[in-house]
């Protein structure tokens, strides 16, 4: 398996983290996202016409979108079914719902981070407000889960929904978004960093 990767990308980190949780071997192909803009080069656009990272290649299959890659890896390499539970229809739908939510976190929190760290020209007020709106929803959901005795987004054990929502929630501070407003999110971040084989990404200042 080959992962087109950039070390400071939270979406690439989703895949690196899940590979570690599943204890999988793979090859990393570094893409010079900044300052090289290699993800917009003709050769990379031939791999992903959206010009986005991450992309996974496995036996001739090319998959773009972090959430799609998580689904693929879970289906292929997690015989326990823990990370992508399919037996319960409602839980299955929950996981899909929060995978989509994760991409909205990218659209707001990650955008704010690109603005603050790399000087991207975008509406920073709207990006931060959008992220706060989503974090209120996530914090409320995680609180409800705790009331039920559950510690994860979609049920009693962690799923790919937790992995998908994690990086740009934990990295939100880089975009000037204060996550200390959200105590249930803080507890969930700490829990995730204590999972076996967890490893950190630069910028996530939480240690197990």
């Amino acid at each position, binding site marked *: 398996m080959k992962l087109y990767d950039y070390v400071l990308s939270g979406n690439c980190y989703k895949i690196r983290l899940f590979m570690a949780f599943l204890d999988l071997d793979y090859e990393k192909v570094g893409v010079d996202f900044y300052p090289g803009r290699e993800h917009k080069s003709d050769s990379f656009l031939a791999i992903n016409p959206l010009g986005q990272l991450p992309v996974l290649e496995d036996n001739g299959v090319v998959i773009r979108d972090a959430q799609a890659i998580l689904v693929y890896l879970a289906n292929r390499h997690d015989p326990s079914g823990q990370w992508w539970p399919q037996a319960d229809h409602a839980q299955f739908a929950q996981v899909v719902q929060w995978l989509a939510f994760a991409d909205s976190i990218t659209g707001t929190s990650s955008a704010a981070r690109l603005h603050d760290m790399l000087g991207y020209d975008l509406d920073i007020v709207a990006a931060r407000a959008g992220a706060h709106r989503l974090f209120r929803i996530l914090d409320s959901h995680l609180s*409800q889960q705790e009331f039920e005795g559950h510690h994860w987004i979609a049920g009693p054990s962690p799923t790919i929904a937790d992995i998908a929502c994690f990086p740009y929630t934990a990295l939100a501070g880089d975009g000037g978004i204060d996550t200390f407003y*959200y105590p249930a999110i803080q507890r969930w971040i700490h829990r995730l960093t204590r999972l076996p084989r967890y490893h950190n990404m630069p910028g996530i200042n939480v240690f197990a």
Partner: protein
Amino acid sequence: MDSVVSFAGWMPAGLQNAAETGTSVRAVIFEDDIAIWRGQDGLARAWQNRCPHRGMRLSYGIVRENRLTCLYHGWTYDGTGGCAHIPAHPDLVPPKSIRAKAYGCVETGGMIWVARSESSEPPPQISGTWMPCRTMQVNRSLTGLAEVLGTGKANLALAMGAWAGQLRVAGLQGAVLLAVQPMGARGAMLHACVTGPEDLTRASDWIESLRGHLERPIAA
């Protein structure tokens, strides 16, 4: 806007479960930035959120046993705030003068309370057993909050002589303990505790709707 009221006496700084054993979290009270952390001994500490070395936030710190290690260069502080170890000078016994600035910190009513060290007020004592329910950030200055709380349908001002008060909420078995933690330009944190698990979900819904009410634009 909030200049009339300032940080004097004991203030709510979070629900007890905001700082779990072995973690350090951030709290803001008016303009004070505070790190709250809990050692393996179960004790919560509140310190100025600035490492005496170069000012790194101690809420990013790493808790081991009953010590806090700064993320930046690893200066390590004991449970009372005294510097116990400096990795760059492993053989040095750090001078007594290197100390994290500690606040008073007690837990009562399911909440963490802090006071500036110079405060001589006795710590609050809230009777009964309270279970942490929700903390919610609300985008309203204290002045705005007082305005809405005083006039609103909930008529909360009455209950909140100080920063916390007990309320009766329709549909709940027990009471709600509500506390307000002002954060200056950041609005405020609302903290709610309940008397038992049966009220958690309903109290949580209630405080969500209270926030909606508080954030509605005030007619000019």
